[in-house]
């Protein structure tokens, strides 16, 4: 604010244009056709922001461009850029949730580093005044308002970082997906949160290093504590929430630097993540608070242990092939199990064989199928499934009643009819796919022993019109393909 006169108008304009490009990047995602153009807008926006910054803040020594520093910056961009490009090219589509978590952690860390750099050299960011009292060394005093913005930015960035690292470890299988419950965790978390906010308030009075670095340290700790108790199946919410945080961190830094590109972007990303979290919570019929409080799925896992002995019908790949070949319409319901066994390509092959027999194929996607929003759609797209064969829950649910075969592969709780009927069930009220209304349900599952993440038995397994196909998803689909001839 005190630097307003120092920033030329064209710079403000350039950052504004860059912000508008980011809005267009998200707008493009309203449909697959426009999305590719949207992504290019995003790149253009980023290029404008970077070039503008480099022009305004060219490293100088004695009036000339400081080539040594410019070289270091270029080296940092090349090293980071190469790692990014190689990772982006090599990563498997099934590993997308881990990758996104890892990327979130980098944004969080970058925000912390920028905050720390601004704290150590506030004059470079134009957020401080130099006060020179008579007969004593000069003091650099950071504006109180900037201290709050900086403190919040660092805190949110640190939470994003450590939370995303834990999310990454859980998604990547380095850490158990089961919730880890510490005693008194709510008290500890709330206490830490209050301490962080209190210290940021105190920071306006005293800009001592210990205040700044304690805020950062406590924020790292709370990010870790917040995600540890959340189970693997709640990851779609967690990953959306961290997405949101990475945006708020960028926005807070934008306030510190008075940079409209950062503020616009931060607001966009922040609301995007918040909306995705809301959609995921709604799809599980759970409140955001209860997800964040954590612990879901670890409690009632053994409640229905006796139910495993109930009679069910078991089928073979040949039975499945025969049933589907006779069908007019087959709806495929994929879930996380399909991702785990990488069955999407085999599944597409099966669908093609069936289409050649004159069977109509559709895919039904539950919003929380998989480990992140849109996870199943990406995997199906990777296997070349045309996106106009893929339907959302509300668009296809009424069709199961007129469908001959529902082919459930690697999904469980999202098909459980107990969510509609059994008030005592932990998933009661969650919107589910009405697969049981199809004439026949083929249910691909590794074994009868395991239950879904909610730890509830699925009534569907024991119905007369259900045939269990017990095997690894990919293996079973490959066998069906063989049986189809």
């Amino acid at each position, binding site marked *: 604010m005190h630097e307003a006169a120092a920033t030329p108008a064209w710079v403000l304009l350039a950052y504004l244009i860059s912000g508008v490009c980011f809005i267009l990047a998200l707008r493009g995602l309203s449909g697959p056709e426009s999305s590719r153009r949207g992504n290019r807008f995003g790149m253009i926006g*980023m290029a404008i922001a970077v070039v503008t910054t480099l022009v305004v803040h060219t490293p100088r020594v004695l009036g000339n461009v400081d080539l040594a520093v410019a070289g270091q910056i270029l080296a*940092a961009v090349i090293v980071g850029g190469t790692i990014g490009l190689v990772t982006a090219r090599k990563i498997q589509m099934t590993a997308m949730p881990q990758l996104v978590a890892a990327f*979130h952690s980098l944004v969080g860390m970058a925000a912390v580093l920028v905050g720390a*750099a601004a704290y150590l050299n506030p004059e470079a960011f134009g957020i401080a005044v130099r006060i020179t009292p008579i007969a004593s060394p000069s003091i650099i005093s950071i504006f109180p308002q900037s201290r709050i913005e900086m403190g919040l930015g660092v805190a949110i960035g640190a939470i994003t970082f450590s939370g995303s690292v834990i999310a990454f470890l859980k998604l990547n299988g380095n850490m158990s997906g089961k919730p880890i419950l510490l005693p008194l965790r709510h008290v500890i978390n709330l206490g830490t949160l209050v301490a962080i906010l209190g210290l940021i308030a105190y920071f306006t009075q005293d800009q001592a290093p210990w205040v700044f670095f304690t805020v950062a340290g406590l924020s790292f700790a709370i990010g870790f504590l917040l995600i540890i108790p959340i189970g693997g199946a709640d990851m779609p919410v967690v990953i959306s929430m961290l997405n949101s945080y990475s945006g708020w961190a960028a926005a807070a830094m934008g306030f510190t630097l008075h940079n409209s590109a950062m503020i616009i972007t931060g607001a966009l990303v922040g609301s995007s993540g918040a909306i995705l979290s809301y959609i995921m919570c709604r799809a599980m019929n759970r409140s955001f608070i209860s997800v964040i409080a954590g612990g879901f799925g670890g409690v009632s896992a053994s409640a229905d242990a006796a139910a495993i002995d109930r009679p069910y019908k078991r089928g073979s790949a040949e039975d499945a092939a025969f049933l589907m070949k006779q069908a007019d319409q087959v709806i495929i319901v994929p879930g996380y199990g399909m991702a785990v066994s990488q069955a999407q390509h085999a599944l597409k092959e099966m669908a093609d064989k069936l289409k050649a027999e004159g069977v109509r194929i559709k895919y039904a996607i539950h919003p929380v199928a998989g480990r992140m929003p849109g996870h199943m759609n990406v995997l199906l797209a990777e296997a070349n499934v045309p996106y106009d064969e893929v339907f959302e829950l509300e668009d296809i649910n009424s069709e199961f009643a007129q469908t001959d075969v529902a082919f459930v592969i690697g999904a469980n709780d999202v098909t459980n009819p107990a969510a509609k009927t059994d008030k005592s069930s932990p998933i009661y009220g969650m919107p589910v796919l009405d697969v049981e209304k199809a004439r026949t349900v083929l249910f691909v599952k590794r074994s009868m022993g395991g239950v879904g993440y909610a730890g509830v038995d699925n009534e569907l397994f024991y119905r007369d019109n259900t045939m269990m196909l017990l095997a690894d998803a990919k293996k079973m689909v490959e066998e069906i393909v063989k049986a189809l001839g």
Partner: protein
Amino acid sequence: MDFISILSIFVLACFVGYYVVWSVTPALHTPLMSVTNAISSVIVVGALIAAAAAGSMSSKWLGLVAVALASVNIFGGFAVTARMLAMYKKRERKDA
């Protein structure tokens, strides 16, 4: 810019974000996450300022590390989004 102008930009951008994101088709929610990830790396602006500034060595090195981290995200985020979006195809229309 004074605080109120900045705050106005922020609040209005939140509203824009709200409406734009609701118009994103659910099938593209994963690319939405990866592209928002890439653009939130606009924080690189702050990192560049720190890396280019004279005055504090530690601040400069923190800036350089932040530039590298943000670059991973920028290049990786846009590239992986482009890779995903290229996979979304329409059904091939058969000539009847």
